[in-house]
């Protein structure tokens, strides 16, 4: 395998994207109509891509497994979206957003990609406002901003605690406009089960209709995956129940590289786990950290009610350890600090797995009304789940799996190593390095969909006139056969345990051995355990019913089967990366005071994995990260 070429345009950082746009081959309007593009996923990245490409004149087939494109999990993002608008005149700029993002990612992302992201972030806000997204406003009518973790400026735009919902509905409305125009054919309740590669180009997908069970073939000139992340490998995460890695995993098995699978993000502010019946974890927006103060009792095992613990017996550990950023320290640091204090036995709530997030000071300073205005729905949600009122009693929070920075490898064009396969949003690995900053996921999803792919797609398509294959091709037939065979083999196991049972086991394993803290030992144990678990799954899983109609148990089992393979790759990746960086914290590589120790000399590269078949281990391909414009420093939020 030749070295990976990220196709980064030459020139100064600020000029790269502009020069790229000026030199990229264009497709004339009359020709765009002749191209058919498949978009899998209808979240922020997928819907914005489908709508924009259709608006440009391409014919788009968009697939989502939900009953409506509006249900994609982007809808649950609460806090906001970053943009370097500098409306607050607090010194923000493209460069600062770029630098914050690359530093937040612990210098494990590409300079050129991140700079482009910071650059187009401004257009995203313009675009969304023109779609009618009701962003929060100040009394004078200007757009309001809030601050967010990992930044010292207020650059986050928001719509109450429902920013993701409003942005997605904006993209969804544009998508619907194009469906109405006939330029997008929307396929709902449709799950992609395989990628079809024709002459080493991605040219189609195999889809199962989740209602009728029908398996269909779809050919296109290019395939775009915008299918989100794989946090659900951990079973309990803040992702929706349906979020899965099946599309990217099948693409990986057809030859696409999987980059940095061990870079997973633990979100510091989630509602703590209640019991083993629990199906998912609920996130409380990180924006809460703007006004909430995180603390635990100084004494171990302090069972007093929070209001009875006097000020001097509280440890505001984030403010103590990181005076400059305090409660706004980046996610990985906040999460690990929470774990540390809980490991010391100072955690609060059932099982000691929680820390307080206290709004008392903010309520005194700003008044209850302001807090209600800012976080009302989050407080309601918290009360609904826990039965506790956070206006009078501090919230209990604990870290939970939230986002995966890793994903399919893509170049500057967002194209994977398989020509014709583009990967957007959380599904790719590109912009967040080893750790994502808050309010950057929405930014990346929309940047990719609205402003990057519409340009970069042309570079590929300009050489693809008339190359769309027929679905009667052998490659399609074989792919369909594979899909059918896999579904049948799942149905034929006829064991006695539900797939959830195995999923939960995998989740616990990954959380303990490849979670907030990893070590060579824990990872080796996991690499030993996962194949055994996978084997048990394939012998004991029970899936009642058939594949010929709606069968949720079959859908879930197929996804769990993929997670059982992906989980192993995550551990393999984590084991190979012998350093601590961002969300990847190896206990062997830490400083005396417990901070992550990065190793730029040996590990400043993207770790990409290539599938080599069921029986062989995947091979590792490195893409070196060359820092031309910034100097990787040790992250310091103190």
């Amino acid at each position, binding site marked *: 395998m030749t070295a990976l070429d990220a196709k980064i345009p030459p020139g100064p950082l600020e000029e790269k994207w502009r020069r790229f746009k000026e030199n990229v081959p264009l497709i004339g309007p009359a020709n765009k109509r002749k191209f058919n593009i498949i978009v899998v996923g209808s979240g922020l990245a997928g819907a914005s891509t489908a709508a924009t490409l259709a608006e440009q004149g391409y014919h788009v087939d968009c697939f989502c497994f939900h009953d409506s494109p509006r249900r994609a999990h982007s809808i649950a993002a609460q806090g906001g979206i970053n943009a370097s608008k500098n409306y607050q005149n607090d010194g923000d700029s493209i460069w600062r957003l770029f630098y914050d993002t690359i530093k937040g990612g612990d210098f494990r992302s590409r300079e050129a990609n991140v700079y482009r992201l910071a650059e187009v972030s401004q257009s995203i806000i313009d675009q969304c406002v023109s779609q009618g997204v009701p962003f929060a406003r100040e009394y004078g009518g200007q757009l309001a901003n809030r601050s967010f973790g990992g930044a010292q400026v207020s650059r986050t735009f928001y719509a109450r605690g429902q920013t993701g919902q409003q942005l997605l509905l904006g993209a969804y409305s544009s998508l619907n406009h194009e469906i109405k125009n006939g330029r997008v054919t929307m396929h709902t309740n449709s799950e992609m089960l395989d990628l079809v590669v024709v002459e080493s180009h991605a040219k189609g997908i195999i889809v199962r209709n989740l209602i*009728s069970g029908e398996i269909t073939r779809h050919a296109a000139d290019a395939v775009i995956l915008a299918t989100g992340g794989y946090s659900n490998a951990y079973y309990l995460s803040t992702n929706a129940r349906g979020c899965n890695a099946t599309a990217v995993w099948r693409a990986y098995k057809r030859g696409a590289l999987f980059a940095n699978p061990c870079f997973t993000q633990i979100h510091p502010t989630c509602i703590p786990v209640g019991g083993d019946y629990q199906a998912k974890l609920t996130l409380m927006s990180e924006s809460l950290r703007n006004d909430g103060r995180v603390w635990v009792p100084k004494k171990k095992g302090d069972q007093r009610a929070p209001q009875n613990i006097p000020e001097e017996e509280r440890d505001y550990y984030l403010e103590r350890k990181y005076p400059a950023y305090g409660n706004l320290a980046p996610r990985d640091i906040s999460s690990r600090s929470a774990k540390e204090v809980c490991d010391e036995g100072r955690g609060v709530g059932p099982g000691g797995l929680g820390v307080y997030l206290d709004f008392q000071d903010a309520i005194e300073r700003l008044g209850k009304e302001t807090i209600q205005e800012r976080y009302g729905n989050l407080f309601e949600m918290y009360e609904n789940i826990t039965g506790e009122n956070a206006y009078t009693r501090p919230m209990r929070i604990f870290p939970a799996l939230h986002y995966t920075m890793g994903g399919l490898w893509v170049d500057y064009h967002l194209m994977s190593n398989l020509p014709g396969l583009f990967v957007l949003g959380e599904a790719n690995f590109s912009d967040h390095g080893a750790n994502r900053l808050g309010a950057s996921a929405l930014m990346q999803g929309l940047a990719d969909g609205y402003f990057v792919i519409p340009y970069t797609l042309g570079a590929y398509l300009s050489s693809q006139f008339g190359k769309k294959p027929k679905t009667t091709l052998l490659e399609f037939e074989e792919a369909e056969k594979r899909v059918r065979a896999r579904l049948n083999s799942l149905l034929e196991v006829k064991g006695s345990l539900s797939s959830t049972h195995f999923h939960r086991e995998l989740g616990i394993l990954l959380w303990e051995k490849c979670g907030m803290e990893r070590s060579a030992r824990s990872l080796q144990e996991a690499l030993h355990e996962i194949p055994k678990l996978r084997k048990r799954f394939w012998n004991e899983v029970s899936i009642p019913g058939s594949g010929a109609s709606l069968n949720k148990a079959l859908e879930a089992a197929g996804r769990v089967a993929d997670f059982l393979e992906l989980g192993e790759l995550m551990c393999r990746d984590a084991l190979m990366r012998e350093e601590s960086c961002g969300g990847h914290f190896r206990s062997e590589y830490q400083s005396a005071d417990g901070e992550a120790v990065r190793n730029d000399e040996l590990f400043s590269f993207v770790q990409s994995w290539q599938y080599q078949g069921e029986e062989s281990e995947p091979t590792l391909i490195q893409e070196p990260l060359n820092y031309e414009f910034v100097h990787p420093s040790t992250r310091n939020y103190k």
Partner: protein
Amino acid sequence: MKMPFQFTRRGIGSAPKLSYQLRVVAGNSFRFLPVQKLSFLTSSIGRKWIVAITGILLIGFVAIHLLGNLSIFLGPEIMNAYAARLHQLGILLWIARVGLLVVAGLHVFFTIALWRENHQASPQKYAVKKSLETTLYARSMRLSGLVVLGFVLFHLAQFTWKWVTPEYKEWIDSLGQHDVYRMLVAAFGNPWVTGFYLLSVAFLAMHLSHGIGSLFQTLGLTNKKLRPRFEYAGLIVAWAFFLGYASIPTAVFLKLLPH
């Protein structure tokens, strides 16, 4: 390749009666263009508006009719004079009558049309029924409306066409006018008639209890703050009508009139 649950471009055409459709105007730009004349009278909201507007007119009639009838408390002369004056209006009276008939007809016709559609839209009912904040008045609109309709027919038959007691036609007062007063006193002396009237005007009040507040919503005149006020005011007006109308047969029956 049949995909039963997906949006296809047929989605556009599958709505045949769309009044406005997207059409290519020039090149790549799409706009809404009217392709068919707008059908206000077949739309959900248009017909609701008609029900609301006719409702207002009928309420107007109910109010004027009440004012006229309350003249009974001023004695037989005034009441009979009022009735005589009304009849002297001649052609105007007939215009009002026909207008009222048309208004009532439209009110009933569109209500039935909407009701039929509503019925078709929810053919299967829930096994567990919950009223979910809907008021009894709202839920009994059809019943109260039908009772009121039946009552109005009886009322007309009794006092306008005088089919129930034909002798009423012969009753003339000392001024040679039709003796409406005596007719009412005679009719409401009967406990059954009085009871039926009281019950009917109670149904009318129930109908208006939802109807008055509701018409402001239908006409789009409410907002979050105003709606409860309109509803409250509607309730008061409706039961004020009840008191007004109920006072007549009650006063007659209990022999509380001035004479």
